[in-house]
């Protein structure tokens, strides 16, 4: 028995389904009934039910590409702040920085999360095409709005790249790195997406903003 429709707005504690269904992200099961645990949009795919959260901090997942800030040096690696409640660690052998160069505290890196343990010990991998990000500016948005910034098949980010001529790299953790072109305009566009993510007709408005 299913109580929620596809693309419904749900709030925590709302009963979504009962019986033979599989609960995924954003839901929890109690005595055979599935309830929403966050504010979000409910998606029903055959027997699978999930809720995509509209808010929330970034929770690391293996396979994600993120942007981080080096916060500390250790014996054979670095600790990296990835804009989440947990720090990540990067081993020396997992990054290529050249023979006479090294990573310093405060450097920006793009990296892939390779492993997240149960206690949230996170290891990164930052060899090609990842690695240190030189120059450029960093913009922070909500991690829940990242899919919106990228858009369907990258349409939104492609639009911003084209109109500003910048190189943009978006981390799943909500950090956006922009270099070259009109950096300021690109940053404003990202912040606009962040602010107005839930209002329909976003692509048109961003396009209008960039053309102005």
């Amino acid at each position, binding site marked *: 028995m299913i109580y929620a429709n596809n*693309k419904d*707005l749900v*709030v*925590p*504690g709302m*009963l979504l389904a009962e019986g033979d269904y599989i609960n995924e992200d*954003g839901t*929890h099961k*109690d005595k055979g009934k599935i*309830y929403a*645990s*966050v*504010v979000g*949009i409910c998606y029903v795919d055959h027997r699978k039910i999930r809720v*995509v*959260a*509209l*808010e*929330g*901090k970034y*929770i690391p997942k293996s396979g994600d590409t993120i942007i981080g800030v080096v916060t500390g040096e250790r014996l054979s690696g670095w600790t990296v702040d990835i804009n989440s*409640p*947990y*720090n990540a660690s990067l081993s020396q052998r997992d990054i290529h920085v050249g023979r006479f160069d090294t990573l310093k505290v405060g450097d920006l890196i793009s990296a892939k999360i390779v492993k997240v343990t*149960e*206690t*949230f010990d996170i290891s990164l991998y930052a060899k090609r095409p990842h690695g240190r990000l030189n120059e450029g500016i960093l913009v922070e948005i909500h991690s*829940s709005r990242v*899919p*919106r910034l990228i*858009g*369907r098949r990258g349409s939104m980010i492609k639009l911003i790249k084209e109109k500003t001529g910048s190189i943009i790299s978006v981390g799943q953790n909500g950090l956006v790195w922009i270099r070259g072109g009109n950096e300021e305009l690109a940053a404003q566009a990202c912040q606009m997406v962040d602010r107005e993510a*839930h*209002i*329909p007709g976003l692509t048109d408005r961003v396009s209008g903003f960039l053309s102005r």
Partner: protein
Amino acid sequence: MERVDGRRFDELRPIKIEAGVLKRADGSCYIEWGKNKIYAAVYGPKKVLPRHLEKDDRAILRCRYNMAPFSVEERKRPGPDRRAVEIGKVMQGALEPAILMHYYPKSMIEISVEVVQANAGTRCAGITAVSVALADAGIPMRDLVPSCAAGKVDGQVILDLAKEEDNSGEADMPVAIIPRLNQITLLQMDGKLTEQEVEQAITLAMQGCQQVYQLQIDALRRKYAGAEYE
């Protein structure tokens, strides 16, 4: 019986809830409950400070309740006092069962409740506001936690005492519940009630909580109305 503000015995004061009012907080809520005016802010989950409070298997919840010096008729000395610390503690106890704390081990959720204007029942209004703020911060929860008080004035059990009633009344009993499980997470009482009156007051307060629960849901829906995602 006629109440001071002309309400029925089982009627709440007018309540207005608004989610997402503070820009720098991860989640926030403003509530006007009769003459109470309260801001709630949620920060987190974030790294635990001080480190020794860290739990390996779940998040920890820290609550701060503060009354502004101008929130009451006679100026209140600023800073935390015995009462504020106690209310912070009971709020933490009331909210923790509803949050899925094991989702974020080794992290901390910080809650701050700021009472701008007080008129009896601030802890109930505070808990109600905080649970909306928690949902607004995207923290996974079993359910929202509505809260509401019942009490006894002039020998009759009534819902949601206002300041004047609280001062002249015989008893006041704040209750917070998890509506879906029908479980009580906060139950306090000052004053005297007989056994039947306690039963009566709890039932009445729980009915009040159900009404508050609907208002919480409405507030969240209002904030995100028209939201759509790919």
